[in-house]
């Protein structure tokens, strides 16, 4: 119940996570400079989402939190995605 037993992330893991994030950032920049045309935005957003997921999982310790909290986080992102999609039913068809 109290956080005495809560998980301790090792320094090494933190550092590895940072490395992955930096690599992904580099890839993002390279991809965009490569001008993939229509795909650029999609690729950039996908990479950003992956980075986001990594930060959530490791830096923010979501991996070690209760299922309820993980569901909440997932649900909130999903809700936001649906709202965007529904908004675009208007803009896309106009």
């Amino acid at each position, binding site marked *: 119940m109290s956080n005495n037993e809560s998980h301790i992330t090792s320094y090494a893991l933190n550092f590895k996570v940072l490395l992955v994030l930096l690599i992904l950032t580099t890839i993002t920049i390279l991809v965009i400079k490569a001008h993939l045309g229509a795909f650029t935005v999609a690729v950039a957003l996908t990479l950003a989402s992956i980075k986001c997921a990594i930060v959530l999982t490791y830096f923010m310790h979501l991996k070690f939190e209760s299922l309820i909290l993980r569901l909440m986080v997932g649900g*909130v992102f999903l809700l936001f995605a649906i709202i965007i999609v529904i908004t675009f039913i*208007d803009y896309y*068809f106009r």
Partner: protein
Amino acid sequence: MNNQTPTAPLNYLNHKTGLWSWLSSTDHKRIGLLYFYCIVTFFLSAAVLGLLMKIEKVAPGETIMTAQTYNAMFTLHGIIMIFIVVIPGLAAVFGNIMLPIMIGAKDVAFPKLNLFSFYLFLGGACIALYSQFAHGHSPDTGWTFYVPYSAEASSNVVIALTAAFTLGFASILTGLNFIVTIHTMRAPGMTWFRMPLFPWSLYATAWIQLLATPVVGITLLMVIAERTLHVGFFDPKLGGDPVLYQHLFWIYSHPAVYVMILPAMGVVTEIFPTFSQKPVFGYVPIVFSSLAIALVGYFVWGHHMFTSGMSYESRWFFSLLTFLVAIPSAIKVFNWLSTMYGGSVDLQPPLLYAISFIFLFTIGGFTGLTLGSVATDIQVHNTDFVVAHFHYIIFGGMGFGFFAGIHYWFPKIYGRMYNIRWANIGWGILFTGFNLTYFPMFIMGIQGMPRRYFDYDPKFQLGQTISTIGAVILFTGLITMISNLIYHSKKGAIAPANPWHGVTLEWQIPSPPPHENFDEVPVITRGPYVFDNPHTK
């Protein structure tokens, strides 16, 4: 504050006295009462504005006020009623007072944050008032603040927007507090499905407050930026998109209408079993219908924009979703009726209000369906039909739910009893006046009487006059009801701990509740609505 007999045991009302002990209290019951007094005051002042508007409309042309005053008046009436009265309303008052008790906790999860939200609320309310009296003239945009008008009007729109923004954050923090409270503070043995239904409805509400309010927060901030920095997110002169504003506004404000009604549904769900001495019919369906309303309620905002020039596809799509959100409400209505069916029904004032809630909410809801269907909404959008719809459902629903709640919990909160006869008389006048005021507006709306109209075509004269007479009767009814309550909160007969023979936790402790609610932590071993020894003399 302290008017108990000297021998009265200490309770939350008298364990400490003095104004400061109230203003600095982190006791959820005291904070709830503070909200109560503020909200009632604001409700009455905005209601008087409503009455004045009706009097203005007793005849075509200018009668008691100018067009500018009228426009400022419905704006203020709408802002106060929506942002200060009904959105915080039930959750902040009865949620605060009753939620911790009903789940067997000593307080909410973050008592200090709770007090902070109250002051944020009070601050927001004061800013709203300030917008009326500050230099320049009072805002006249309607509570919806549609751009480009709100970006250009010369009135104190920025102040009003700031008020709405502040009030929004108060509401977010209350929601946050309730979610955490419900997750972590339930008494031992109180599993999710042993929780009474009022807390359940607050739980669904809190998620809406938490996740929808920030969107309107940022939107209002953008309008402020638009006015002060000339950026132009929504102003077409600078390339902005006025309809995008409407999307963002309703992404919040539609879910917000369920913030208003869900707690009221929770209140009446408590009342029906108690006064029938019978378990709630369909506990699980009621729980899931609350959650479904909260969830689907997020996806129907576009039904306020059927004529805005949205794409054809999104118009019918939103219409379809709107119809789906009516289903959980239907489930609730039928479950309430079945709860009473076969019971031993005692028609006391709380039940009287709860039953009128069903009636008025049903009418409001069905007219909501008329609005949800695209073809018919095209005809009645922005007419008095809409005004009648939401007064039926907000005032008739949330308002009557609130009145039901106050008549139900009054003896618990004050430890005294009101006069039942007068409560019934007040109800009669109120109910008559209510229908007389708003029903004609449905008819006028269908005939094409637009809303936010200071003046009208003489052919609407009859309906308008009836409606005005109704408003005066309504006024009388409210006065009757409120004076009965105010008088007896000090002078009423001492009430027993459990006057209605309720079975939820709040009835198991003394009236008024002691400062720390429970002398010892209650242990829950069964569901919330078990009437093993019916008190039916």
